[in-house]
């Protein structure tokens, strides 16, 4: 799937620019994207390294399992394929909480860790497991309660009430998450039959 999207973006992008755009810009884009990517990694690197260290402490002290136990009743319904004592549950919880608080960059290391733990329970290492898909649907439908960046931008542009979009975001997020999880559930069941 990612193969197709990647190819599509590049082929369509280059062809369209060649016919209708400026070749000079295209050259700049191609040559600069690698350094843009490196910049992105440099932004991510310290956060991931720092949080992996802190989360390792939470894991060793048993806190992660405890948090996982606390939310297990809800999560085990969403992730029936994961082991009952899976470490992934703790990371999934941390990821969702960080996302919900609008701390996107702090959420990424937790999400990557969750994927790693789920991969350990995955039988076919190159195929996405049921749990991974459910997690990503939940993650990308964006359980955001406080969209910090949006609020900051609204403030900057002189909104009279920058926080007024919190409620609308929550309502729309609920619709998106429920719709995504429902479709995920249906497709998971259909495969089993």
């Amino acid at each position, binding site marked *: *799937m*990612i*193969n197709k999207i990647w190819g599509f*973006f*590049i082929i*369509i*992008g*280059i062809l*369209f620019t060649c016919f*209708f*755009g400026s070749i000079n810009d*295209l050259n700049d*884009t191609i040559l600069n*994207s690698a350094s*843009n*990517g490196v910049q*992105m*990694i440099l932004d*991510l*690197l310290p956060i*991931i390294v*720092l949080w*992996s260290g*802190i*989360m*390792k*402490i939470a894991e*060793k002290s048993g*806190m992660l399992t405890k948090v996982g136990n606390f939310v297990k009743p809800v999560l085990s319904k969403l992730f029936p394929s994961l082991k009952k004592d899976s470490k992934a549950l703790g990371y999934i919880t941390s990821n969702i909480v960080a996302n919900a608080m609008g*701390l996107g960059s702090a959420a990424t290391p937790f*999400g*990557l860790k969750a994927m*790693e733990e789920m*991969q350990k329970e995955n039988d076919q290492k*190159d*195929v*996405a497991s049921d749990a991974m*898909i459910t997690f*990503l*649907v939940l993650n*990308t*439908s*964006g359980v*955001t309660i406080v*969209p910090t960046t*949006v609020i900051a931008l609204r403030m900057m*542009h002189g*909104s009279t009430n920058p926080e007024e979009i*919190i409620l*609308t*975001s929550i309502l*729309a*997020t609920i*619709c*998106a*998450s429920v*719709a*995504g999880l429902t*479709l995920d559930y249906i*497709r998971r069941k259909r495969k089993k039959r």
Partner: protein
Amino acid sequence: MNTISKLIIPLFVLIVIFYAFRKKVMIYDTFLEGAKEGLITVFHIFPSIIAMVFAINIFLKSQLLETVFGIIAPILTKIHLPIQILPMAFVRPISGTASLAIMNDIFANFGPDSFVGRLASTIQGCTDTTIYVLALYFGSIKINKTRYALSTGLFADFIGIVASFLVVSFLF
């Protein structure tokens, strides 16, 4: 709300360290061990990030989306859908920075308290960079058969955008 979200990280760090301290974990060594693992994670996601940024940049800079929107704009005005929101909705799944930039333009041109401004804020808050996240997360553990993950994620985003439109029309 803002203070709460600012307190989350310091509180979280405090609780983690305090709890581990009481459980007599070797916190410093454990931190280093985890940080090293984090470094390896970054090493693993490095290629997927370079690859995605490369493809996304070429696609976004090609002006293809702008051209398509120019063609369908008259139809959208007829059904009272603000045209400015479309580029944002389409770019949102592939690039967080690009969609933020479009939202910034919308704020600058129409104001954050306009209908489009509120709609853009809500969409930004309730959807995510689905394609990018999938590429990153699956890439980090070398999964290339993603089954129905992408279409389900994009479906959720689509519902989120429709719901944003309805909620904002209804509440304001």
